[in-house]
């Protein structure tokens, strides 16, 4: 009788809760009756079969308790060993539970052999806790519950990053688990100044998001800005970091990415040490890095693992490739259509001979080939691996050779398009390469309309647009405003900066000194820790 009454009361409250969208007005608290609580949670979660409810008695005290967890997202070994086993069997015989003693405090102090246990009082936090993979334990005649961290279950192990490949350097990559990702970075920065701030985003998904930065290295205003942007997100579901990127970026109307992403923990570490903020999103193996500048997208972490001389040359090569992939086809179009006099005569003769049989204007020819190449590229990404060879045969033979022989395109155009395509692959960041790909078509149209003049004007528009962009309020074109110390890294790569070439050892202590505010005692420095442990 009493049971049903309680249930009724709870139901009414549930209705109230669903009516009240924000859910903040009326907080719903646990009931002292164990069966009541267990029934409520099962009810709330829709009697799902993967919600495991286990009733048991604690040790010898005969106190009733119930453990609730979700199968699949919890570590079963932990639940069995540290919660059920220790509560049911190993409760010390010597220490017996007095009648008037608080069950909760007793269990927490004597019986639970878990590191992370918190006390919960209201239903919202209980439900969230269960759904996050924790095990929640209810006790008879107690209006509070214990939640033990038993998160686990099947996860992808740490594997090498597939999107950012390096020849030399660490082979670990981020995974879908936010905890693993944070730990990968933490392992690399053993500083007490590192800060991790958690957020929950998405009313339905309740996705874990965390920002990580080094206090003192990063400007406080940036951290404040990102906090505000994250807190202001009102959204039902957060799909992943690319979704978050869209929600917190400065400008909507731009093809350029204004927030960097990386799958590599060493890249993230480097940028955190640089004074930037990393944003981790649970369920995505790409962490976001802000503020980003245009030139960051043309650096690869590889540059830091190779000799500086080689790294500088390779970086310059990458910028050259950027220019080719942006201007390649448009310069060809402009030269063929408007400025034939600029081409040296022997070359012009051979080009004219090639183009003799081609019925299309250069712009149309270029557009056709670029279009075909983009289709090939897209097909290459989406198709199953087994038919890869078929695509390359079609691409290389049919679209290349046969098209030239049939007189549809000139062979010079095939060379230009191929060079452009290869160049665009040398941009380390895929989303920047995408933006460049898009803009290339605009540039081609401008060249077809007005030759070099069109290219020049389009470039002014482009640079004007880039200069107007900002990432977290920091200008996107870091070349301007010009700060010489910032530029060394842009042009010459990190190795010239002694303090950055070996971040774990020296960067932190140096930063502190320059920061001036809280210079650490020398024993704080990670270098000393390392030395100390070495001498022992």
């Amino acid at each position, binding site marked *: 009788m009493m049971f049903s009454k309680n249930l009724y009361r709870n139901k009414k409250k549930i209705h109230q809760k669903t009516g009240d969208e924000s859910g903040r007005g009326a907080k719903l608290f646990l009931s002292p009756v164990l069966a009541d609580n267990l029934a409520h949670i099962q009810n709330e979660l829709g009697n799902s079969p993967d919600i495991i409810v286990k009733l048991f008695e604690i040790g010898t005290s005969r106190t009733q308790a119930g453990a609730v967890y979700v199968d699949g997202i919890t570590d079963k070994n932990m639940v069995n060993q540290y919660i059920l086993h220790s509560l049911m069997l190993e409760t010390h015989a010597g220490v017996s539970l007095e009648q008037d003693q608080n069950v909760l405090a007793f269990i927490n102090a004597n019986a639970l052999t878990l590191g992370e246990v918190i006390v919960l009082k209201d239903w919202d936090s209980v439900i969230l806790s269960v759904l996050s993979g924790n095990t929640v334990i209810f006790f008879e005649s107690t209006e509070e519950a214990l939640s033990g961290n038993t998160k686990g279950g099947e996860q992808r192990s740490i594997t090498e990053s597939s999107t950012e490949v390096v020849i030399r350097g660490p082979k670990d990559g981020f995974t879908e688990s936010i905890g693993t990702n944070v730990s990968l970075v933490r392992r690399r920065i053993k500083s007490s100044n590192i800060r991790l701030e958690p957020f929950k985003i998405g009313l339905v998904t309740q996705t874990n998001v965390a920002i990580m930065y080094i206090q003192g290295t990063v400007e406080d205003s940036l951290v404040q800005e990102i906090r505000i942007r994250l807190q202001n997100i009102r959204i039902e579901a957060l799909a992943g970091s690319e979704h978050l990127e869209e929600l917190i970026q400065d400008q909507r109307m731009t093809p350029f990415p204004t927030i960097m992403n990386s799958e590599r923990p060493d890249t993230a570490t480097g940028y955190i040490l640089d004074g930037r903020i990393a944003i981790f999103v649970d369920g995505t193996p790409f962490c976001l890095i802000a503020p980003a500048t245009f030139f960051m997208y043309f650096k690869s972490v590889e540059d830091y693992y190779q000799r500086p001389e080689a790294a500088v040359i390779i970086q310059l090569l990458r910028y050259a490739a950027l220019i080719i992939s942006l201007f390649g086809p448009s310069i060809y179009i402009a030269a063929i259509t*408007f400025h034939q006099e600029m081409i040296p005569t022997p070359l012009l003769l051979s080009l004219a001979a090639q183009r003799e049989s081609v019925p299309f204007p250069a712009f149309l020819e270029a557009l056709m080939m670029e279009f075909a190449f983009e289709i090939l590229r897209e097909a290459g990404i989406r198709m199953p691996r087994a038919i890869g060879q078929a695509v390359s045969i079609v691409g290389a033979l049919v679209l290349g050779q046969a098209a030239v022989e049939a007189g549809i395109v000139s062979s010079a155009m095939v060379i230009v398009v191929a060079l452009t395509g290869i160049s665009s692959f040398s941009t380390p960041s895929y989303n920047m390469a995408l933006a460049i790909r898009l803009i290339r078509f605009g540039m081609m149209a401008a060249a077809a309309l007005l*030759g070099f*003049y069109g290219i020049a*004007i389009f470039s*002014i*528009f482009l640079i*004007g647009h880039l200069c107007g962009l900002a990432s977290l309020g920091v200008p996107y074109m870091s*070349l301007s405003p010009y700060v010489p110390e910032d530029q060394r890294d842009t042009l010459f790569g990190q190795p010239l900066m002694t303090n950055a070439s070996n971040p774990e050892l020296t960067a932190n202590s140096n930063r502190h000194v320059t920061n001036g505010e809280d210079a650490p005692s020398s024993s704080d420095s990670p270098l000393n820790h390392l030395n100390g442990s070495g001498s022992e």
Partner: protein
Amino acid sequence: MSKMSAISPTQLFAMIILFELGTALVVPIGLGAGTNAWLSILLAMPGGIILYILIVYFDKQYPTLILSGYIRKIVGAYIGWPISLLYLVFFIYNSARNLREAGDLLITSSYDQTPVVFIHAVMISAVIYVIHKGIKVLFRVGEIYILIMLSLGIISNIAVIFSGAIDIRNLLPILGEGWISTIRNAYPNIFMFPFGELICFTTILTHLKQKKIARKTGILAIIASTILLSMTHAIEVAVIGAGVYNRTTFPLFTVITTVELAEYLQRLDSFVILALIIGVFFKMTIYAYAASAIAADIFSFQEQRKLAYPVGVIIFLVSVLSAWSFPEHNNEGATVVNIVLPVLVAILVLLLFIHLIKKRFMTDRTI
């Protein structure tokens, strides 16, 4: 946009160089200075520096006001308003002149099939876009383009030198006609164009971040641009001779066509055209910005950036309609350089005297 957009000294430096080189790099300057054009340019530099110091002085006296603002402070609203309007009209007209020059060079070089209206419209749309983005963006763009401009200059100079086209004898005799004619070429001709055009910066210095070094930066920029300009014109005369230099419309263009290096590097025309496009773009944009700033001030218009559209459209129309032919355009240019610009500079000097007298008078009265 924040209340005060800040420009860094480097950006100012870059912009003054771009502005000074602008069209002056490409067209013959100093109307018939010929052999000694390079010397006249050097001689005109002190005048440019003094003018710049005058501009900085005004900015120091009225740090929050632009030209039209302190004109009204000095001579009162009733006289000040029409004078400001005069500057506004001049800025728009000169911006249009620059556009016209670029358009004509483009048409003569390789766009004889393209309607001039289209070429002008494309350029003005870029100007409107950048001004609409704000002065901060404009100066950042300038900082990037100065690098492009300098690399174009270095490559072209190397090409010209190694092609062996330079004949130093063309520059002799130095001072063949004596000091008098060289100085008379410098003042007022070269002093007015390109140095006199610095009066545009009366609307820009308010936005500077570190005003203390504004003077030093600006003077350094003027010296640097003078050296570049003088060198370029010396090379031009050395390559094509004083006679052709005076007769041709775009001497730099003629010079670059003579370059022939290793059979393959024959055509650097596009470099000159590119340099001209960049130079004209910045010159026009600064003029258009100055015009929109003054217009916003004298008509008390809150959103200055929106004035980019009307100012741009007017510049476009003036550039197309002001002269029917290039010779007519050049004649108008002579009038501008010889009469209008000197008057505007003189007004500035006059304002200085009025300001100084007022200041003296006021302090006397307070004592």
